[in-house]
């Protein structure tokens, strides 16, 4: 039955996938291509349809339309147990009555692998997730991070076409999460495993993915590499959801290579670095906090905005500065603490907001 040997796994394609709950469209006409070996993240707020999509791919929820293919094999009419998908649940769902080795070997056992081959594969994947000594333990005797690695090994061991990860890091504490993020990515690369990862945490999505699929209200807002999503959000939703953008209302007055935005209620036009709008359109100018330059009132460049500091929050490596600009509203800046050591809340400053990204309003 070993029809799907481990190794470079399948590409995945979703075409016009649809899911209704009564009259509510949870997933509307979703199409997505994932290359073999790629790590793609479905990112979005809760209720955006990302988990529903994952469950439809796994076969745990019937879909109402569209088709799903792994390679050229059509799977959406197959039951879950014949799709050859590795699934890692948020709570891991490790079988509590089985040992770590039995958990990892479950998929092999279901595929009728001979005992010796099963054992070799279990050992291989125990080594991959660095749990060699714990084969005989029960899940209840493991830490959260160890359980998570067992769940990953279990999902990989039988050589699935695709691995699905459903918020697998949300039950770990912050420090562990960072380590597991790196581990998980390393394991995925080593296994060259096509992976779909679902999360609402943009930091995870940006740090781990080859590509990020940003979803909202059952639809794809934007697909792109993490850097692209971060620096050039395609829509207002993307700009608001990813990073703590400053969104400034304005009108696009110049397009092309050097776009300029006239700020509403102000007599200035700011230079932007990129634009997703047409000239004359009302737009948002998105400026990342780390792009905002703070200077004392006398030294400000000509196109800077006058503002008053309202709060300064020390974050270790950076200082988060909040300022109120008359006519624009609250703005946030992030900079090395040394740069703003002289400033205090209440001081008048100039904020340089150049180099932002423009999205349609």
């Amino acid at each position, binding site marked *: 039955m070993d029809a799907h040997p481990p190794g470079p796994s399948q590409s995945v394609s979703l075409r016009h996938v649809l899911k209704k709950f009564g009259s509510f469209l949870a997933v509307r006409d979703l199409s997505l291509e994932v290359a073999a070996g790629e790590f793609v993240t479905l990112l979005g707020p809760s209720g955006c349809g990302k988990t529903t999509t994952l469950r439809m791919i796994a076969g745990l929820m*019937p879909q*109402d339309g569209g088709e799903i293919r792994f390679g050229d094999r059509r799977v959406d009419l197959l039951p879950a147990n014949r799709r050859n998908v590795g699934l890692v649940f948020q709570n891991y769902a490790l079988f509590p009555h089985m040992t770590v080795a039995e958990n990892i070997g479950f998929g092999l056992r279901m595929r009728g692998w001979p005992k010796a081959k099963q054992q070799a594969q279990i050992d291989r994947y125990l080594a991959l997730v660095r749990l060699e000594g714990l084969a005989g333990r029960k899940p209840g005797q493991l830490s959260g991070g160890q359980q998570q690695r067992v769940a990953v090994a279990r999902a990989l061991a039988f050589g699935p076409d695709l691995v699905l990860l459903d918020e697998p890091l949300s039950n770990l504490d912050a420090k562990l999460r960072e380590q597991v993020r790196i581990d998980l990515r390393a394991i995925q690369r080593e296994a060259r495993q096509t992976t779909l990862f679902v999360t609402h945490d943009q930091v995870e999505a940006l740090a781990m993915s080859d590509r990020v699929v940003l979803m909202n209200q059952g639809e794809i807002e934007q697909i792109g590499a993490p850097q692209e999503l971060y620096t050039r959000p395609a829509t207002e939703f993307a700009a608001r959801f990813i990073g703590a953008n400053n969104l400034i209302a304005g009108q696009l007055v110049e397009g092309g290579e050097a776009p300029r935005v006239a700020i509403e209620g102000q007599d200035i036009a700011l230079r932007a670095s990129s634009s997703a709008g047409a000239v004359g359109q009302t737009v948002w100018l998105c400026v990342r906090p780390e792009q905002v330059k703070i200077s004392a009132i006398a030294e400000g460049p000509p196109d800077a905005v006058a503002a008053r500091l309202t709060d300064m929050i020390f974050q270790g490596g950076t200082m988060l500065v909040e300022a109120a600009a008359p006519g624009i509203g609250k703005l946030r800046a992030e900079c090395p603490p040394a740069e703003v050591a002289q400033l205090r809340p209440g001081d008048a400053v100039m904020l340089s907001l150049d180099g932002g990204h423009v999205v349609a309003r």
Partner: protein
Amino acid sequence: MELAEGALRRRRRRQDLLFFRLCTAPALLLTLLVGIAPLALMLVQSFIDQDSEAWTARYYVDSFTSSFFTRTLMTTLAMAAGVAACAIVIGLPMAYLLARRSWARNLLMPVITVPRMLPFVVVGYAMILLLAPMTGVLNKLLVDWGILAAPLFILFDWPGQALAFGYSAIVVAIGILTGVLMAVDPQLEDAAVSLGASRLRGFFTVTLPLGMPGVIAAGALIFTAVTTAYSIPVMLAGRVPYMISIVVATNLLTLEQPHLAYAQAVVVSVIAVAATAFAQIVLSRYGRQ
């Protein structure tokens, strides 16, 4: 193409349903055969004349026009309601203690639990050993101590039966009330006390209203159990039957009036099911609050 897919998906869902329906089928079938069908048959037969096999309501009319039947039914219901009320009042303080003090639970739980694991017959035997007019331990003690001039002849009469029912009923009441009161947050009562209520007032204004579902559930359970009890009423029977179950059984077994017995059984079950349903309705009202 689209149509075929839709049909396939629907077929998959139908197969799923079929699989799970097959899982429930044996339970459903057995219940229908050994539960629903006999009850339905009994109901039907209670409306059929035993001799002429014609439809008739005469067994119901006969029952309710017989003063013997109605009187016995009334004494039964009075007995059941009385026992339920007394058992709850008597059991409530104990249940409160068990719910609030874990040492009491650990210590007294066997005393509360073991009696529930006994057949009523054994309880009946115990009552006879305790209360029998000449040989009963209690009677002998009371006479020996000079508290009573002559032994009490209460066992084979309604007080004896009430005591025997009460024994099991108190145990049931304590069990259920303890479970419900344990679910009531003790901090609520503490809050009432800190606001100036006395402990007793706190109990009656805060804990008891929240524990009311337990009172209702225990009441309904005891009421129906006593209404349809058979072993105790026969074991401790006096000259006049107080309990309706004896009337029904006599019609069925001795007087060879099965259809009359069915009609009376239907009357009794309507009362019992109504009590349970009433409790359920009140409980769901509580649940919604």
